[in-house]
């Protein structure tokens, strides 16, 4: 599993969901967690963290947000060589096939459908960790 020092960015326009995700991450031992309320506020945070030499180790984002949607943020991250290897999980109420396919095409690490329980989120994090560790790009880094 990701080390407990991993720096997380949790993005959702609803503070309730950010709190719920933080609560689950805390239960898993993660305390280095920052929050953003929209993709539009998250992107400069991701860039600033990278520039400061303290990049995020994991991004968890809602899909449906008013200014910049999670899928657009995902695409922006994947298009930037500095951010493309940061694991990126979408948490969304959208569970239709076309949305899941769009996220997969954009390079999402995993996809959590709301509502979810803490066991589901934990299981997805473990799956992403296993995948990241078996990826040649990460091993080479």
């Amino acid at each position: 599993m990701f080390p407990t020092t991993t720096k997380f960015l949790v993005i959702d326009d609803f503070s309730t969901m950010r709190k719920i995700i933080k609560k689950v991450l805390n239960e898993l031992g993660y305390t280095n967690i920052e929050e953003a309320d929209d993709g539009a506020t998250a992107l400069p945070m991701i860039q600033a963290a990278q520039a400061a030499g303290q990049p995020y180790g994991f991004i968890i984002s809602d899909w449906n947000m008013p200014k910049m949607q999670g899928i657009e943020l995902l695409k922006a991250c994947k298009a930037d060589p500095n951010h493309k290897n940061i694991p990126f999980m979408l948490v969304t109420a959208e569970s239709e096939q076309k949305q899941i396919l769009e996220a997969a095409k954009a390079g999402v690490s995993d996809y959590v459908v709301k509502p979810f329980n803490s066991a589901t989120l934990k299981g997805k994090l473990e799956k992403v960790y296993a995948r990241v560790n078996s990826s040649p790009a990460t091993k080479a880094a």
Partner: protein
Amino acid sequence: MSAAIKLENPLLDKVTINAFIKAVQVTLSDMASTQVQFGKPFIEQHLTPRGEVIGILGMVAMPLRGTLSLSFPKNAILKIVENMLSEKYTEIDKNSTDAVGELTNMIYGSAKTTLNESGFNLEMAIPTVIHGDFKSITNSDGVTLVIPVKLSTNEEFFIGITIN
């Protein structure tokens, strides 16, 4: 291939009602460890306010237009928020209104998936939350199907599905 919608009045269809009932049940169980029971649904010509915090979301599945409303009396939303966040609140504040927004979003998203698999074509939507001491609500000319929902701790809230 999805089936075409054949309903004269989708409010009275079991598929619609069950989609929202299942969505509420799963959402509250997963996100708030809260079990619920459903009362007998009834139809209202004019939506009566039944709570201090209401989550509203416009539903569009052409040619149908409607509104989903979740009406929470104070004691019900405070209990749900307590269960969701493991923090006790005694008054309705930003946490309660935010939680109603997120619950409305999740319940609609979950029901939308079920209904779209049955041939509807509901679109994504962002909810609005209103908070106050309401005497009446005028949101449409349509009739509303109201489904009472009772928490295991006896607090009650209401699902409203209005078809314009």
